[in-house]
């Protein structure tokens, strides 16, 4: 059907959608802490006492209001798994295809929270040895959020 001789019309069109997304108060607090104090903060559930990360108004396990008992996640953790992109893919936020230069990693922070971030190391062989890592914060131009951490750097022990 697609290979008949009739001319088929199509229209290429990219309509940029503007957005203004609000963090709300809980993630807003986390943003404020990264921006002002270079620290990751979660809120501790009033019932199970676990740190909820990213901070949320309701504990996903207990389904109760978490409250505002804020605790630090710390800067150090262990890489559970990582991968890196080989082929560029479309990024709608920048409107073009790109491959992020830094590997994506799942990290268990020493406080017990699991976060997703990037690794500084880009060499595939050296990456295999990266286990213990520490957050490298932006010294200038922090705006709030996870991008205030540039990436995680390998550390000893």
């Amino acid at each position, binding site marked *: *059907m*697609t290979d*008949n001789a009739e001319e*088929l019309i*199509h229209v290429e*069109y990219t*309509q940029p959608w503007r957005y203004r*997304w*609000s*963090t709300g108060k809980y*993630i807003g607090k986390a943003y404020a802490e990264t921006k002002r104090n270079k620290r990751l903060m979660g809120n501790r559930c009033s019932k199970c006492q676990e740190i909820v*990360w*990213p901070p*949320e108004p309701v504990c*996903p*396990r207990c389904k109760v209001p978490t409250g505002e008992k804020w605790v630090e996640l710390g800067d150090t953790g262990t890489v*559970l*798994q*990582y*991968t*890196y*992109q*080989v*082929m560029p*893919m*479309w*990024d*709608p*936020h920048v409107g073009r295809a790109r491959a*992020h230069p830094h590997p*994506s990693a*799942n990290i*268990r922070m020493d406080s017990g929270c*699991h976060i*997703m*971030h*990037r690794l500084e190391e880009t060499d*595939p062989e050296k990456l295999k040895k990266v286990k213990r890592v520490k957050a490298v914060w932006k010294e200038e131009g922090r705006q709030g*959020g*996870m*991008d205030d951490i540039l990436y995680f750097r390998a550390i000893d022990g």
Partner: protein
Amino acid sequence: MGNRVAIIGIGQTHFKSKRPDVNIPEMINEAVRAALADAEMEIKGIEAVFTGNMETFEGVCHPDHWMAVESGAFGRPGMKVGAAGTTGATVVDEAFHMVAAGVCDTALAIGYQKHDQGNATGALTTCCTPVWGAGFAVGAMQEFAKQALTYMERTGAREEHAAMVRLKADYGACRNPYAHLRLGLSSIDEILQSAYLVWPLRILDFCPQSNGACALILASEHVANRLSNKPVWIADMITVHQTQFRAGIYEDLTGRDPYSQEVAAARLYKRNGITDVRRDIDLAEIYEPSNWQEMTTYEHLYFCEKGEGWKMVEKHMTDIEGEFPVNCSGGVIATNAIGATPTVRIAEAALQIRGDAGERQATRDIKTALATALGSTNWTILTLLRRSL
């Protein structure tokens, strides 16, 4: 449970990478006409219509409004359903609930996707808002990659096993005239030589972006028995949701929170008296967006012990000729029109029960089959089908 419900009509398009010859309504119409023909019905016999796709993928707001005539929804009740990757099963679930509740006697469920009209990877990235994590997300691929690495580390599976899954899928796809990628692969070496996309996953480890639609006609017991000589009964459907931040996207690397597919399967089996899965179920059509997911899904659904999914592949247990066939159709890695994919899983499982799967028909007799859907942050829908209730 409510009234008994059967699938009495099955229709799907030939899935392809490009469909410039049709717009979305026309593409859907092909599947609807095929389902009506299969059921030997006319559209006036349909009482309600449910449609669904991955929103934003085609750049059309309210696509259901544009297709009311072609979907059969014109002048009828129903709605558009959006539930990310599970949408294609949710449309069936909605139709199932309506008929089971006695609201109507017949309902049409349509899942579709026209990937050539948009950019799926770009659209998927918008699942993650810039508020939280869009800078880290590249669709679901990175999570698949990390899951594959963890699976290898934990279980002893090797890249060769993932390649075997691909080879098995291609064998089925080549026997399925509706399948998209029919590569005619002859050995796992061809797969192991394809280029890396997200290390260690290669192009041939992944599904393609397909265009197509799948439509199912559901009917109440008295209508099904009157109209159809081979109804396939929906014994049960179950949905389990999961929150996005508590797990890795497709594998809980924390090892703490239960996985949605495990929760759904345990509930479904308990509710339906299934105690030995491979004895009580004959075949499965599962949602495996990459070949690695196929092996972990065997484990999540209790087809085997934890860490042993790759052994089922190595022993060819899940081949078309095997003792427990899985994805005879070629599965998702051969054909993925996301909004239609879970509908196709149910359709293919139903065809196997009817004995109408042609060259891809399993060797053993299929009386009970399981179809799965997986989407977004671990949302799961399972459908249990039976030849008789």
